[in-house]
């Protein structure tokens, strides 16, 4: 197949934008953008949730900073809602009020191991379902976004 100069340009453009070498979590609010990579997220205080999930048999251990800590690092100033975006184009919107009380973490590791995209990494919003059985239903399951790539505040 013959490559046109135009397509070569597109390829270059895409390559520069995506940069998949290190998984990143982008947080945006209007024009303001902050990008965390995994190492940065792991420098935050880590919380571990041991819980059963609808996705696996038995319990798994998830580790990562709390969602609250991550958002506070970005700086919260009167935002009301947020949207989670995932690599698989899944997205879900929630109000901050609703979300902050759930004890959610941005998990970077499952059972101590980093998570590949195939294992629904690199980041996974995890709720303490076993500790708080009230959360163990569809209403809250939809916030447990895997392959998380971005959080947009508004």
């Amino acid at each position: 197949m013959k490559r046109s100069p135009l397509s070569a340009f597109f390829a270059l453009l895409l390559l520069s934008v995506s940069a998949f070498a290190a998984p990143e979590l982008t947080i945006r609010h209007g024009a303001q953008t902050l990008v965390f990579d995994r190492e940065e997220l792991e420098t935050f205080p880590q919380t571990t949730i041991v819980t059963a999930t609808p996705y696996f048999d038995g319990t798994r251990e998830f580790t990562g900073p709390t969602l609250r800590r991550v958002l506070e690092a970005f700086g919260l100033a009167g935002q009301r809602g947020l949207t989670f975006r995932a690599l698989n184009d899944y997205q879900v919107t929630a109000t901050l009020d609703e979300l902050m009380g759930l004890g959610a973490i941005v998990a970077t590791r499952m059972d101590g191991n980093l998570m590949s995209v195939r294992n629904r990494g690199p980041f996974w919003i995890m709720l303490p379902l076993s500790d708080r059985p009230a959360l163990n239903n569809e209403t809250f399951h939809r916030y447990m976004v895997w392959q998380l790539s971005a959080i947009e505040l508004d």
Partner: protein
Amino acid sequence: MIRKTVQKRLLLRRTFVFLFVVMLGLVGASFYTYLQDRKLQSFSLAAVRVSSWSLAQLRQEASTLDRELALAAAGVGDPDEVMLRYDVLWSRYDYLLKSDESAPLRHYGDNETRLKALFADYQAQESTLLAASAAAQPGWEPLVSFWTGHKAQIDRLVVDNFIGGKLGQLMIDLEASRDRLSRLRLLTLAAIVIIFAYLALALLASRKQARIDRVTGLPNSNYLQSIRTVDPARAIVVCEIREFQLVLAECGQREVAELSRAFIRQLWSKLAATDELIQIAQGEFVILAVPAAGLEIEEMVGGLVAATTFDWQIGDAVVRISGVFGADAPCVGNCSGWQSRYQQAHRALAQAHLEGRSHYINGAELRRRIRQETVIHSGLVRFFQGEPSGLRLTMVYQPIVSADNIRHITGAEVLLRCQDQVIGFVPPNLVVEICERYGLGEALGRWIFREVARETGQLYGELGYHGTLSINLNPAMLSETLVGDVRALLIDAGIPATALCMEITEDNAALSFERVNELIRQLQALGVTFALDDFGTGHSSLEYVRELKVDRVKIDRCFVDGIEHNRDMARFLGSIIAMADQAYMKSVIEGVENQAQWDLVRQLGGTLIQGYHAYRPMPFNDYMALLLDPQTEYPTATPLPVSASHPLAR
């Protein structure tokens, strides 16, 4: 009639069976619905939603990979992006095959096998992909050709699951279940309506049932109590079977039921279909009826009386059955309420009993009489208690004279007079009757004794008069206390026992023959004499008269009336006098009102006469004055020559 049949059917076994079948059908339908829907219960709608979501995501993620692959194949794609999309789809396969959430989807049909096969094929392409992306001149061809087939399989899996598969079937099942439930709801509703309707009707019927006498099928006293108003045009008639207790006592319940039915048939024969006949007790009925056109209430009740008088065969004997009727006439204009009219009808019945009549129709007259009797009764009570009273009793004296000499006064009968401020003159027999009825008889007797003694005491005591003093004894006075009363109130008060003559009627004597004879014996021992009053008018046989140990007979005025015109009557009077003579009884002939009668009586052998021709009843003062008249002769305690028999004149 239709309503009656409906009511009857309500309580039939067939109706119960029908209701039972309805309930059974409902239970059956419920059970069937339960069985059908139990399968659906194992499906969680949440699982269905998650499954369909996962399938949609699978397709979405496959499309994204498809697009990236196409871009890459066109030479404009990014191998990393292809790799990312490959990984994302990988994670989807992994999720579908391993997660709990996806279990329902996996377990439907051959989904698991197909997914496993797809995933295995997909995983096998990893090396091809890596090779393709790593090459300097990426060769996407093999991957694209694999992918084209693979994507088609993914699409088919999704379509199969949505359209022909579990989800589609589930929707169909759910729809069927919903229809079943709605039918069941309808059925339940219908059954509930039927049962409620039945209960309501049954309740009404049972209430109606409670208002019907079980023996005769007539409305009963429960029904009577439910009556609030009665058309003023209707007469209210209360009636009793007079011989009911007799038949009940003789023959028992079955016979009286039969009798009741016969009696009711007779009543109905005189009533219209629109009239009401209510049985208020055994042998007691209430009739609400409009007198037939042109018929007065009297005629209507008369008809009922005639119809209900019949012979009733009990075994070998025949009993004459009759009814006693009390009626409140239809009212015009100012009409009292049903309750009060019903009471009036009962009063009329009581009046009929009192007067021994077959019927009594209540009207203004009865009401007035009842009111009057109430006034008299309360007046008497106050009078006897010595309280101020509108009513006054006095005594008058009617001289009894010798047939030979109209001026020869042998004594007097004391008669009662009653005057009421409001009513005026009250007939003495009514006073006696009321006293007897309300238990004032003895009080009346004692008052008479005292009053007579008070008035005549001096006459007998100091003045030595010895004419007879005839006092009527009413039934209540014929008691054990009579002897004591006569002694204490009359004899001890100065009336010589030998001057006292107690008058009793045949009928009163016959009430308790033995006791009366005993009283007569005891008083005669004191010297008191007895007279049989109203002789010949009573209902007792001559045998009683013979056995009663009286000293005198007073021959009633009915045997005197007309003797001057009719020789047979005169002869008959003569034989009565003769009969009394034969029995050693003196006869007093009452009601002699003219000279012709007087002469005849004298001829017939009468010795003592009491009547208007001689003297009318008079107050004591007039009686005294009469005795003081020099021309008057009378007996004295110590017999004096007739010419000098005037101690009072001294």
